[in-house]
């Protein structure tokens, strides 16, 4: 149930960037290596968004595939599930190049046209 904490952190992040304007869309990049359950995150987001600038906003999750890199042979490969050994040289010193993201990519806010132009 850490999705509740993550949802709260998303709302807090968005509030810092929305300038008080109502938010319509929140785009979040979630790496495959994070244990985030999309349905649960959406449910929690709807709950914690109430009475914030995110109330009624749509949460769009962009799931980022996991890409690993072998330190020994420098091979890079995409992975959906373990094992995490290098498929080329069976090396065990591997690091994630992508797949550990958990970031608010962008938001869409509703702005008064006159204010926006000034």
């Amino acid at each position, binding site marked *: *149930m*850490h999705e*509740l*904490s*993550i949802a709260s*952190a*998303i709302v*807090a*992040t*968005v509030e*810092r*960037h*929305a300038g008080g*304007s109502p938010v*319509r869309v929140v785009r*979040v990049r979630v790496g495959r*290596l*994070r*244990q985030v359950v999309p349905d649960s995150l959406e449910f929690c987001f709807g709950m914690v968004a109430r009475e914030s600038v995110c109330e009624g906003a749509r949460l769009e999750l962009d799931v980022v595939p996991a890409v690993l890199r072998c330190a020994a042979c420098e091979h890079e490969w995409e992975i959906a*599930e*373990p*094992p*995490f*050994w290098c498929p080329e040289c069976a*090396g*065990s*010193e*591997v690091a994630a190049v992508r797949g550990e993201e*958990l*970031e*608010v*990519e*962008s*938001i*869409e*806010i*509703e*702005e*008064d*046209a006159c204010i*926006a132009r000034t």
Partner: protein
Amino acid sequence: MHRTHVKVLEDVLDANGTLARANRADFDREHVTVVNLMGSPGAGKTTVLEQVVRSLPGVRVGVLEGDVKGSFDAERIAALHVPVTQINTDPSFGGECHLDANMVRSAVPSLALGEIDLLVIENVGNLVCPAEFQVGEHARVMVTSVTEGEDKPLKYPLMFRACELALVNKIDLLPHLDFDLEKYLYHLDAVHPGVAHIELSATTGAGVEAWRDWLVEVATHGHVHA
């Protein structure tokens, strides 16, 4: 009214990360090495601590106990005359399932950092959430037990990938269980290639010495040697 697209590109857990770095700076200033002890409820986190906290040669140890509610574990550690502080996650929304950097930060003033060399933070029993929240630790230890099934690393990869050491507890029960230790270790290595592990029984004392040596090594050097 019109819609404006705003680029954010900000880590969702940035606030937690900032507090974790502040905790880490406090620990480093006082030369205290911090170990985050994680694992599922009942894996034996408190028990493996009880086995070693009184006999770490040259290392003064303190413990931070994280639980949703109650101070049962803290009382067990306090009975060994080891300084211990309890954090309950209950006052927040329904009781958080993990410790975060802010909770640890609020507990830092109650810890006499100048009087210890090693702080062990026993996280809330949980195989998912604690891995997402750094608290300022130098190393992470995962406690698992042979009663939990050999497929656990495959089911909870994040947690097993986040640790520097996996303790495999309750090995005295192996003769009574349908648990394939080799298979478990294969799964562990598949999820976290090369990760160190210690097979341990808090009941018979097997492996306790290796676990103690590991803690002393980490406390002495402030980090894990590859």
